[in-house]
């Protein structure tokens, strides 16, 4: 089953999963957005602007890293090749684009984040499937009965763990997509579930970036996000108006 998936969707075809996930997720978010007081079309505009800003920023970041290469071949600036992007620059520019649009269109921050939660949870599933198809985000070597053979070694099926947990989070939050509660609660729950499970599952990954003493940097970031989201949930539960909209 896994081999069939990997044969059909070997890179770069695996990118079809996140693309489909963005499309399905945004449709879902637009459907539920009015219940959160956010217009569906504004949500789509927000996604489009952050996507375009991310694409532009990702390319500019890559150009800044390798200016000589682009000076020698300026037309490469317009290339559609996805390898000519810097992921961190894309993220930063996408975020800046989203913040500017949020402010200019006066969208309430926490309402909007809640409205975007269905899209984020579908995207998490899409990314997990892409990892499953490409073999990225592979597991640490293991001798457990459910290991998969990958790159010449028996490994934890970390991509399967990732897919199952993303599906689990989506199912857990599914009913809450249409419920109206305190602004921010749905998004913070999604953040807490995602970061908590990442903190746990990162231990079974074989490709973690390490900092001192073998500590995995993704776990540290996940812990900080978890702490932030639990604090937010705690404050919201005590005083529903404690998270003021930006």
């Amino acid at each position: 089953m896994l081999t069939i998936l990997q044969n059909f969707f070997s890179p770069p075809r695996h990118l079809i999963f996140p693309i489909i996930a963005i499309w399905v997720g945004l449709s879902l978010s637009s459907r539920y957005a009015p219940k959160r007081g956010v217009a569906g079309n504004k949500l789509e505009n927000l996604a489009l602007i952050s996507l375009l800003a991310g694409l532009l920023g990702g390319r500019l970041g890559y150009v800044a890293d390798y200016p000589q290469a682009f000076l020698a071949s300026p037309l490469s600036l317009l290339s559609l090749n996805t390898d000519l992007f810097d992921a961190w620059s894309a993220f930063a520019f996408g975020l800046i684009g989203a913040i500017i649009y949020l402010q200019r269109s006066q969208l309430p921050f926490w309402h909007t984040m809640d409205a975007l939660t269905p899209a984020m949870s579908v995207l998490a599933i899409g990314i997990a499937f892409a990892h499953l198809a490409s073999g990225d985000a592979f597991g640490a070597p293991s001798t457990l009965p459910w290991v998969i053979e990958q790159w010449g070694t028996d490994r934890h099926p970390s991509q399967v763990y990732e897919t199952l947990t993303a599906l689990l989070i989506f199912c857990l939050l599914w009913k809450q997509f249409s419920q109206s509660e305190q602004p921010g609660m749905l998004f913070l729950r999604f953040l807490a579930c995602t970061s908590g499970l990442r903190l746990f599952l990162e231990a079974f990954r074989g490709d973690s970036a390490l900092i001192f003493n073998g500590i995995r940097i993704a776990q540290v970031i996940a812990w900080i996000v978890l702490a932030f989201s639990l604090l937010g949930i705690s404050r919201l539960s005590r005083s529903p108006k404690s998270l003021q909209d930006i």
Partner: protein
Amino acid sequence: MMQLKRPIIFTIILIMGLLWIFLSANRSGASTGGPLLAPQEGFLAPDFTLQTLDGESITLSGLRGQAIVINFWATWCPPCKAEMPAIQEMQDAFREQGLVILAVNATSQDTYTGIAPFLEDYGLTFPILLDSNGEVGSLYQVRSLPTTIFIGRDGIIQKIVIGGPMPRALLQSRIEELLK
């Protein structure tokens, strides 16, 4: 009652999270495949020996210490043809700095007699290796042509680019990264 308990539960979760971070730390210090052989970024490039068109044998491990670009190609493949001039330019520009380009012809899917005229047409001077039975292609799990593999001086695969033609800037930037 639940509201009173919640901060305690959250604090316990965060303490357990911290403990898990320390308990699951990777003391071996290996963040990826490291010395394992696999056709994947972060792993040691699988070794092979192939003959060139001139009958010379080239072994990948024998080139350790140099930055290597392996390009899988065939004469009938249009994107392979399109990126060959840029690859030749890179060979000319970076050979002195320790760049080695190995163009592995998928000979099992190609016409042997067409290779020499192809080299002449495109003025290629880097070694052309003949993968006569497709063994190296399957060792590197090449699923489409062209596929280009960038290998650092330590023998670790830094980047795999599937499909083409590669933009010239991508080729140059990846080579600059290899030579750093």
